[in-house]
């Protein structure tokens, strides 16, 4: 395996890091007593830039090394004020004024100011990557102001009911440090891909895209620390499921991803050295249908596909009931998911009926995610169903890193992609407006689905702040998406976490899947 390449840390920062961790003057014994927590991740950490990332596979980078104005905790998820001490929202819902907590320090000791928040927002808007789609419709470049070192003001183009919720993805970077490393106006994108400039609970110590990253606890973190916190957090890339499982069983890793096959989970449950943890998550699995490409723009074609998928066979047999059937795109436990929503069933007669009405049927292509067996298996399931109604479907497998850029390119995107929609913020907008609003073509709406009524409702639901009113709107959206067969909605996942016995407590939140190391308590 490749060796870690130490980062270029100058002596001063290194010493500061050591003193912060309380190491100077300690003997070797104390060093050995540091609590180390190793997570085996099934996804490579190819870049570290928090503004270029927006997925769950690499969320550990953002959660552990950076802070945002708000933060999601617990299950069901609750929004917590994080960097913010006081929030003022103007009556028209357009002006948000935040007072930052005092003495928030970055890892290099610089005090965070509102200028850092402004820079971070401008950086997201300029890079047009990561969580850009969350902000692009409401925040114009240059409208975020630093009123004084601790006060920052956002002036939105229009009221945006979920602004507080999505601020959890505005990761604040150390603007002075990033600016120092800018090259040809790249907003430091190159440098920050391999380095870190955050204030989060853990400071980067070593990074290698092929191995993962190690971070040490930042004693000076503004939120302070609880009892028995983790001193060293390591996220190691281990692509092999069996290796990850074996590693946890042997205690080499403390945990791994929470979405293992039932057989591997059963093995872990039998092991006396492992604690398992089960929680209903909010992460729906579905097929993106590319409405841009004919004949998928024909509702009959899409309905034929929806009826050709064996939902029970997939959820209950192939996945051994580790998931729950979800008829719509919004996860069942989330408000806005209509109670009693009637979804599609596996019904080949109906599938044939709808297919018969489609003109110019052509063979379809599914782009399954290599290395994600569930994605491949779902592709096979749909292929087999389609074969029974006389529709040819070809499967190609590509790594997620190849599929992801194509999601925002309507011509290059596959016809169908089986994948998950995880929670980035606990609001129905995460699954509806973001994914299906016409405005979000090329920036979240990877289905290229367009329906004026859905657009209207999604827009309206972002202006109204009353949750009860919004609920009604999202329920209608959810209903329309099913009627339009906007996607093939399959299941909602359950989190099945396995942790070594010395892990005393975790705090599971569907946003981040328990990868927020600061909440983990461990025996010495």
């Amino acid at each position, binding site marked *: 395996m490749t060796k870690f390449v130490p980062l270029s840390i100058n002596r001063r920062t290194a010493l500061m890091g050591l003193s912060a961790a309380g190491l100077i003057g300690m003997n070797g014994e104390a060093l050995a007593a540091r609590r180390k927590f190793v997570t085996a991740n099934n996804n490579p950490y190819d870049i570290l830039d928090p503004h270029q990332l927006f997925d769950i596979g690499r969320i550990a980078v953002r959660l552990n090394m950076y802070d945002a104005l708000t933060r999601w905790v617990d299950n069901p998820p609750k929004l917590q004020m994080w960097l913010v001490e006081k929030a003022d929202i103007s009556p028209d819902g357009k002006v948000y004024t935040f007072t930052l907590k005092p003495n928030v320090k970055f890892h290099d000791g610089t005090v965070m100011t509102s200028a850092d928040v402004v820079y971070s927002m401008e950086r997201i808007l300029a890079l047009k990557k990561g969580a850009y789609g969350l902000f692009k419709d409401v925040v114009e470049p240059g409208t975020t102001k630093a009123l004084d070192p601790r006060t920052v003001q956002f002036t939105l183009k229009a009221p945006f009911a979920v602004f507080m919720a999505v601020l959890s993805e505005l990761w604040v970077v150390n603007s002075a440090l990033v600016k120092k490393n800018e090259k040809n106006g790249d907003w430091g994108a190159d440098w920050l891909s391999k380095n870190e400039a955050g204030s989060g609970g853990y400071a980067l110590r070593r990074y290698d895209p092929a191995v993962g990253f190690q971070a040490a606890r930042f004693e000076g973190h503004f939120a302070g620390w609880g009892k028995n916190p983790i001193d060293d957090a390591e996220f190691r890339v281990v692509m*092999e*499921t*069996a290796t990850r499982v074996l590693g946890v069983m042997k205690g080499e890793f403390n945990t791994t991803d929470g979405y293992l*096959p039932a*057989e*591997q989970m*059963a*093995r872990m449950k039998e092991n006396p050295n492992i604690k398992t943890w089960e929680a209903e998550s909010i992460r729906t699995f579905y097929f993106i249908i590319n409405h841009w490409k004919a004949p998928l723009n024909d509702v009959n074609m899409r309905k034929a596909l929806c009826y050709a998928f*064996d939902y029970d*066979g*997939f959820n209950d*047999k*192939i996945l*051994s009931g580790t998931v729950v059937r979800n008829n719509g795109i919004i996860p069942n436990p989330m408000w806005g998911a209509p109670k009693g929503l009637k979804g599609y069933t596996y019904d080949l007669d109906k599938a044939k009926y709808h297919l018969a009405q489609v003109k110019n049927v052509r063979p379809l292509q599914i782009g*399954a995610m*290599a*290395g994600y*067996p569930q994605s*491949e*298996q779902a*592709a*096979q*399931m749909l*292929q*087999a169903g389609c*074969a029974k109604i006389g529709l040819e479907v*070809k*499967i*190609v*497998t*590509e*790594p997620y890193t190849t599929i992801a850029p194509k999601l925002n390119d309507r011509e290059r995107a596959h016809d169908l992609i089986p994948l998950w929609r995880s929670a980035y913020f606990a609001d129905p907008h995460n699954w509806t407006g973001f994914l299906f609003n016409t405005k979000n073509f090329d920036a979240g709406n990877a289905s290229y689905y367009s329906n004026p009524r859905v657009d209207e409702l999604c827009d309206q639901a972002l202006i109204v702040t009353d949750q009860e009113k919004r609920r009604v709107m999202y329920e209608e959206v959810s209903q329309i998406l099913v009627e339009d067969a906007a996607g093939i909605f399959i299941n909602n996942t359950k989190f099945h976490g396995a942790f070594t016995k010395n892990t005393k407590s975790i705090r599971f939140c569907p946003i981040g899947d328990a990868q927020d190391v600061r909440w983990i308590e461990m025996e010495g």
Partner: protein
Amino acid sequence: MKAVRIFRDRALLIGVVIISCLVLVAVFAGPLSTYPDHVTGFDPNHRLTQPGWQFLLGTDRMGADIYSRLLFGARLTILISVIATATAVIIGVPIGLVAGYFDGWASEALMRISDIFLAVPQIVLAIAIAQTLGPSIQNVILALSATYWPFWARLVYAETRSQRNEIYVEAAKAMGASPLRIMALHILPNISGSIIVRTTIGMGATILAAASLGFLGLGAPPPAPEWGRMIAESREFLPKAWWYATAPGIAILMVVMGFNLMGDGLRDVLDPRLRRGGSDGK
């Protein structure tokens, strides 16, 4: 004479038997299989079932019969290895002949190009090509043949060099035969033994390389019953579903061994200088 020798050489005999079995299995995959529709179909109700009377070698993650898939996989294996190896021979042999027979910058250039290919491990180059072109059977064949021809070019070059000053070549030249005629009708038949041996062993190596590509997800996409892919799929269920990887694993082992034994044996038969002590020809 030669037919008798084949049966005297035990390694060759075993190799021939294994390869014959492979060919038979591939040809009669339909009638031999218990669930012919499980090449693309499956039965979720019997997912990961242990080997038994109903499913001879157990079932996979979708509930498809591994035994039936293995049989149909033999077709894919033969298809990939025969086409890839044949293409490599068709490209490599003429290059080797021309470069070996003539002197001059063209020969030098041809051999240096093949050296460049040989400098990079074949599988690494094949991975790069398959990854760039995207996973499919055609691309696997393309990647393997594009990276495999230099082995034949090198071999034929060396053999041609040693043959071109032989008396029979001189004689042909004296009689006014054209270089093309000499290469095709005089030299080639005299070095065909080495080519056949190299090709036989090359078949085994190609199967192994194709399985490796399949294992890495660069081969035929699901649900193709490709042996390498079957092993890759099984990893997620190890060690519980031990049968999942075992069956295709043994199949690959046997076939590669079969080709290698056959290649070894053929060398003994075709090259009298290397013939083993104790056998005939002394």
